[in-house]
């Protein structure tokens, strides 16, 4: 019997967080939340989840900052990242490349608002993801 997978969801908008939680609660996941990039890194250092769902535009530290930190830290090498944001994908990738010189190492990019069934499908797929 496999353990319940844990997911960390990071978004500064409480309503978005609430809606996503409601969808994901339909499955047997352990759900944690953070409201900005700094909180996200704090939570990650305590426990590495099986999946990180990450917004990009957030106060204190934005999602691009989180990706940079996480992808340069071997502790998180096996953790897939799913971006969930209102930022258009190509604009977002271009910005990351300009800032870091690397392409964005993430496993899924979903533009908000996600359709519930698609979100669940993505999450299931990413939980199977192995680096």
């Amino acid at each position, binding site marked *: 019997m496999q353990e319940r997978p844990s997911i960390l969801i990071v978004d500064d*908008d409480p309503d978005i967080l609430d809606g996503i939680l409601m*969808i994901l609660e339909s499955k047997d996941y352990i759900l944690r939340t953070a409201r900005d990039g700094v909180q996200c890194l704090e939570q990650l250092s305590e426990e590495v989840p099986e999946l990180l769902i990450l917004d990009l*535009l957030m106060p204190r530290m934005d999602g691009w900052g989180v990706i940079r930190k996480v992808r340069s830290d071997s502790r998180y090498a096996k953790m897939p990242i799913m971006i969930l944001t209102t930022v258009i994908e190509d604009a977002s990738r271009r910005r990351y490349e300009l800032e870091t010189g690397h392409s964005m190492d993430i496993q899924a990019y979903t533009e908000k608002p996600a*359709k519930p069934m698609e979100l669940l499908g993505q999450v299931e797929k990413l939980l199977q993801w192995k680096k």
Partner: protein
Amino acid sequence: MEEVNNSLSVVADRLRNSEVFFNLADEDLLAIAKFCQEEVYQDGQVIFVEGESAFKLLVVERGKLAIEKKIQLGRHSTPRNATIAYVNPNQVAGFSAIALPHKHSGTITALEPTRVCAVDGVKLRDYLDSHPDVGYKVISAITSLVRGRYQAATNTLTYFLSIVSHELRTPLAAVENYLRTMLGGFAGDINQKQERMLNRCVIRVTDLSALISDVVDLARMRPEQIQADFEWFDPGEVGRESIEDSRLAAAQKNIEIRIQPPKKFEPIVGGRRRMRQVLTNLLNNAIKFSPPDATVYFRALYEEDQLIFEIEDSGPGIPPEDLKYIFTDFFRASNVGDTPGAGLGLSIAKKIMDAHNGNIIVKNLTDDDGNINGSLFSVHIPRNLNTPEMRRNEWTSIESNKD
């Protein structure tokens, strides 16, 4: 006589303090002062109207003016005036009086009781014509003034856009997220009536998001931005993707998209994603305006110097008097009725094609009796476009041939 000279030198001093006449010699200022006149405006008074002939250049002495431009969203809404700049003491309004085509580029309104020194534009033009050195100084000053206004307008737009794209999208995303969560039954059971209403909510919110994206997109449509993404691509593939984009809309009205491709698709250079946007937009329009169960034709054909895509529908066509306006921002033809849309799709498509040195041509189709029974949009893409890399190589070879 003494008094006249005194008052002339007072006016000359006022002119000297202004942003346009500050570096002129005393004799020129005195000469210009002769055709100046003091004018006073009340709070709220409209002084010039956009588009009207310009006869006067105003140097503000006291008070404040606002420069406004008329903005009309859609054809039925009341036009509104948006303030684009303020004119404070020693600043100048109405430079159109000495800049061709001598028509006011904005409407000028007094925001406070305002006193100005009004320079007669025709006489000023004559004076500048006969004193080219003075003309040069004045025009230089006006150029930097216009440059400043242009910069201010660009900054406002960029700022406005970054606000629009994020601030407006975020709450909408939250609303749509909740709606979909409820519709998916994740917040408990809903009855049929509630489901219908929630579905309507999703549709309205999605329309609004699309409108916001269009507005933001429209302002991003600078030709050099589009050209920077030019690449080789297979037009057939892009055509197939566009059909895929509009498949759902077609299925909902049971509309058949009949495809008439060329014998073979040759790769061309252009903005791949933008081209898909144009074709999808035209296909969606064709579907939107066609009656249920109709057929939409989607053709592609090669000519020696261009690739042409054609999209033909059997909708109501476009009223002849509206034809020349349909590519204008926010324009919607008078016969669209309740069909949703913001009037931005075609103007965006046109801007994309302009950046390709191409074109979109529209015509109404008629039956034997001359009644309009559809419309035909054709997209013309030149076959001699260059990718940024090809342009760089071209330069390099020109440079190396010079040596």
